């Protein structure tokens, strides 16, 4: 409901806004005049932020510039396949493609994308006065090349946070029981030991009281890469294993023998820690992707868990989908004390900062018009309503908007955390081979989850497999 009325409201305000500034008119109508009759085509995933572009921003842009924009929203893997086929075959179907942070390096390596900074410099008549690259949050850095030129306009950004149930954590009876059992006060965990203890406590508490309640989520699907991601993006870093344990500076080594970290003792400890959590998580965890983890939390079946930021907002605020509205606390993922030092020192990270941008394929036949649209969605003025309709933030100014501050309260400080602690999180490693290595090693990972091989031996095999695949791809010499 929130989302729906949000979009309606946003459309209304945008409309009002438009009528107000049309007097000052108008870069957009002037710039658009040259491209009448052009129809821009974009492809993106059908998520709320993208749907907002399709339903609100694109029509608004058309009204101002006369340039029609058709946004195709599709499923995640279809979106990639279509964008890649188009750019690879140079068909020029799309003028805008969604670039998830983890694929930008692959696209850059292939020179699939137009340099936005450079293009706007080259043709000043295209540059909107309302668009400023420096207004983006640090997330935009993922879409820049070595020279700091921008290749994608950020349109969504999230952090994978530690969510806990405030109603349970603040329940005096539960607090008392926890104290009696562990001798400690019940509060969100800061370390792995604390997290495990709380998880064990709640799983037992649920069992003892006949409740459908467990101590932790686990995104542990045994056939879907979601489990692989949870381990390498969210768990291993908190044990000090970064970038999947692959050392790009050292000939892409993955095994300890060659200088990598994928099968290091830290990685093995991380995996055992997570496997134990999986075992005390609700039974559906073995078939859970990010979707089910979100719904498990929203259904009130767990006391705490790591949840993608995309889902954190609706879990905390959308009563149509969530049973725990108003009872969701946000905290930093638990981590090792030593790792926290590394993270604060800037050499590590403690969780996943994901999101995406809109980029312009060099095969596009309407680059100029597309540049206009990209600037349109990157303006500060459209951000706040967008954030309310589909919780995501990409521009620093958005944090200070009253509507967003109001929402931040509802989300128990999720936006504040994104703003203040966002720097502690990191996106996917800068590898041009993302899905390739993931898919090569995932089958072994599933075997570990099923107990067909032990975690130690399994990680050894995965590291070896990663190197083999990297050799096969030609990155590892």
């Amino acid at each position, binding site marked *: 409901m929130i989302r729906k009325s949000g979009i309606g409201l946003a459309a209304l305000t945008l409309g009002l806004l438009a009528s107000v500034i049309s007097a000052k008119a108008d870069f957009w109508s002037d710039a658009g005049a040259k491209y009448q009759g052009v129809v821009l085509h974009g492809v993106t*995933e059908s998520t709320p932020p993208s749907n907002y572009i399709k339903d609100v921003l694109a029509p608004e842009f058309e009204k101002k510039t006369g340039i029609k924009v058709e946004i195709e929203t599709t499923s995640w893997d279809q979106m990639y396949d279509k964008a890649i086929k188009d750019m690879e075959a140079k*068909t020029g179907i799309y003028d805008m493609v969604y670039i998830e942070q983890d694929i930008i390096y692959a696209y850059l390596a292939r020179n699939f994308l137009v340099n936005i900074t450079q293009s706007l410099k080259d043709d000043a008549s295209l540059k909107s006065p309302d668009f400023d690259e420096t207004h983006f949050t640090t997330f935009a850095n993922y879409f820049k090349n070595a020279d700091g030129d921008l290749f994608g306009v950020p349109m969504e950004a999230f952090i994978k946070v530690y969510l806990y149930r405030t109603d349970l954590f603040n329940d005096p009876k539960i607090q008392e029981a926890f104290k009696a059992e562990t001798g400690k006060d019940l509060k969100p965990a800061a370390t792995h030991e604390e997290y495990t203890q709380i998880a064990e406590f709640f799983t037992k508490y649920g069992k003892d009281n006949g409740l459908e309640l467990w101590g932790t989520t686990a995104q542990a699907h045994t056939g879907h890469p979601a489990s692989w991601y949870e381990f390498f993006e969210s768990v291993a870093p908190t044990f000090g294993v970064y970038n999947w344990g692959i050392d790009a500076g050292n000939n892409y080594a993955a095994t300890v023998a060659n200088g990598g970290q994928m099968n290091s003792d830290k990685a093995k400890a991380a995996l055992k820690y997570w496997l134990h959590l999986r075992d005390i998580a609700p039974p559906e965890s073995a078939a859970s992707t990010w979707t089910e983890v979100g719904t498990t939390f929203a259904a009130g079946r767990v006391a705490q868990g790591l949840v993608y930021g995309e889902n954190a907002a609706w879990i905390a605020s959308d009563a*149509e989908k969530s049973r725990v509205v108003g009872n969701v606390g946000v905290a930093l993922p638990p981590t090792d004390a030593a790792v926290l030092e590394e993270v604060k020192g800037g050499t590590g990270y403690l969780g996943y900062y994901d999101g995406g941008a809109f980029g312009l394929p060099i095969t596009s036949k309407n680059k100029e018009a597309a540049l206009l649209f990209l600037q349109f969605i990157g303006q500060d003025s459209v951000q706040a309503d967008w954030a309310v309709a589909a919780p995501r933030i990409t521009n620093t100014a958005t944090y200070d908007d009253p509507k967003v501050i109001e929402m931040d309260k509802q989300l128990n400080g999720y936006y504040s955390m994104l703003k203040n602690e966002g720097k502690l999180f990191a996106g996917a490693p800068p590898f041009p081979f993302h899905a390739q290595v993931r898919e090569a090693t995932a089958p072994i990972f599933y075997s570990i989850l099923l107990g067909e091989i032990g975690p130690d031996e399994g990680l050894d095999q995965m590291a070896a497999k990663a190197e083999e695949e990297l050799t096969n791809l030609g990155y590892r010499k």
Partner: protein
Amino acid sequence: MMRQSSPILYLVFWILLSFLTLFPIYWLFVISVKPAVDLFTTPSLILDTVYWNNYVKVLSNETIRRYMYNSLVISTSNAALVTVLAFMACYALSRFDLAGKENIFFWTITNRMAPAAVFLLPFFLLFTQVFTIGDWKLYDTKIGMVLLYCTFNLPFAIWTLRPTMDGIPKELDEAATVDGATTWQVIHEVVFPLARPGLAVTFILTWVFAWNEFLLAATLTSFNARTITTGLSEYVTTTGTEWGAMASIAVITLIPALIIFSMVQRHIVAGLTFGAVKE
């Protein structure tokens, strides 16, 4: 033995079996009338409250209506085209003494064997770079999908129709020919009426295959010719699957399918009056 089994027994058997058949469809309906928040709680076989919002959302969505229309046009045209072509092909295979016809017959089916994933690439190139006239591409057109679906539907239709065609005694059309009927008259007045149940089944099933196809449509259409199955996949996202919306669309898509079915059913039944086997 066989003549004694009472109709009541049949009825009981069919009702039990129908429960099994209908259960997943019933469950689809259950999902479609539940708010997302109720999907992940202890399930219950019985539906206590009905929540129509998913339907309201879906029916008011203009895009979904367009997808539905595209799907109807594509699958109906494809099924009609395929049925006609397969009828002609089977008549040729069955009635003429063509050199190597059995090999051709077998070759047709090989077109259905290919695993689709890899073939998407050549299809994509064909549609975007080969079949183009000026700015026009076969890509993202309904006609493109109608033609493309022939690759898996034509072999199917030819293989299901051939036995029917072979089963129609040649003596009948020979007799008609002797009586002075033209080839067209033989086909129209002798073969066609007898092949009707087979044709009806072929039409229904090719229609179903086209209606349900996902991978090719997802890759080879984008704005104009998108079908309802690709629309369904839009509800599977990284921010969660919108089960309710997806299920309500799925339930709605059953309706046109059912209408087509009941229209064509008559022709299957028509066969009963001709060659019914009473054991």
